[in-house]
């Protein structure tokens, strides 16, 4: 029973260990994870921007790095995080506006977003 737990044992939000995993929960957590990843990518983006707008040598070096293994890993991770955060962000804005608010609507759109992001991840893997 909830109220019999000791004060310090009570679960605090978000209750990851208590709720069963749902598509909607995965979508929400992935939104946070991808958002955090995108924040961490900002310094690298700034570094790229600086290189690309610098001297010709700097531009060539930046382009070379982007085509290297680490560059491709960076582009893939950033691309997947961006695509996911972008489309799930649109989903969240829709929900805030009152669309897809039903239980089925929330679940189906969550699955659609996860599936789209998975397709985008595969597509990016092929294209890079």
């Amino acid at each position, binding site marked *: 029973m909830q109220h019999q737990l000791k004060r310090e044992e009570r679960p605090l939000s978000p209750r990851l260990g208590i709720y069963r995993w749902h598509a909607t929960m995965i979508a929400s957590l992935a939104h946070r994870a991808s958002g955090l990843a995108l924040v961490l990518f900002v310094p690298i983006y700034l570094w*790229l921007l600086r290189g690309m707008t610098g001297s010709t040598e700097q531009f060539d070096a930046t382009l070379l790095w982007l085509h290297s293994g680490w560059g491709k890993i960076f582009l893939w991770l950033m691309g997947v995080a961006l695509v996911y955060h972008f489309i799930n962000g649109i989903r969240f804005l829709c929900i805030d506006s009152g669309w897809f608010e039903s239980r089925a609507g929330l679940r189906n759109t969550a699955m659609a977003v996860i599936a789209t992001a998975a397709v985008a991840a595969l597509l990016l893997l092929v294209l890079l």
Partner: protein
Amino acid sequence: MRTVKEPGSAHSGLSDWYWQRLSAVVLLLLLPLPFFLLVSVYGGSLNQQALLDIIDHIYSRVLHTILILALIIHAYAGLKVILEDYIHRIFWRVPLIGAMLVMMTGFGIWWLSIIWAWA
């Protein structure tokens, strides 16, 4: 109510929520632009001179500035919520949010200076 650390509704919660959505809409419109620029440079369809011609333009600088402001507001709101959810001790939470704000402001100023310093 004794256990509520910060009152939510009707205090400053709506403001955070509103700014997060507003910045989200701005990013929705602006973020695809640098993304396609990066893809074009990576793919080789845009050389350095062409890239510089685009981002040196006054419209690009203004849009880039709006993008950065929206990005900082959005990242601050998002990270603040994450920190508030997972860090329960006020002793850690407040300095961390403050440090995050200072770092983001620093990055923002640096970024803006890069954009407006281009000749």
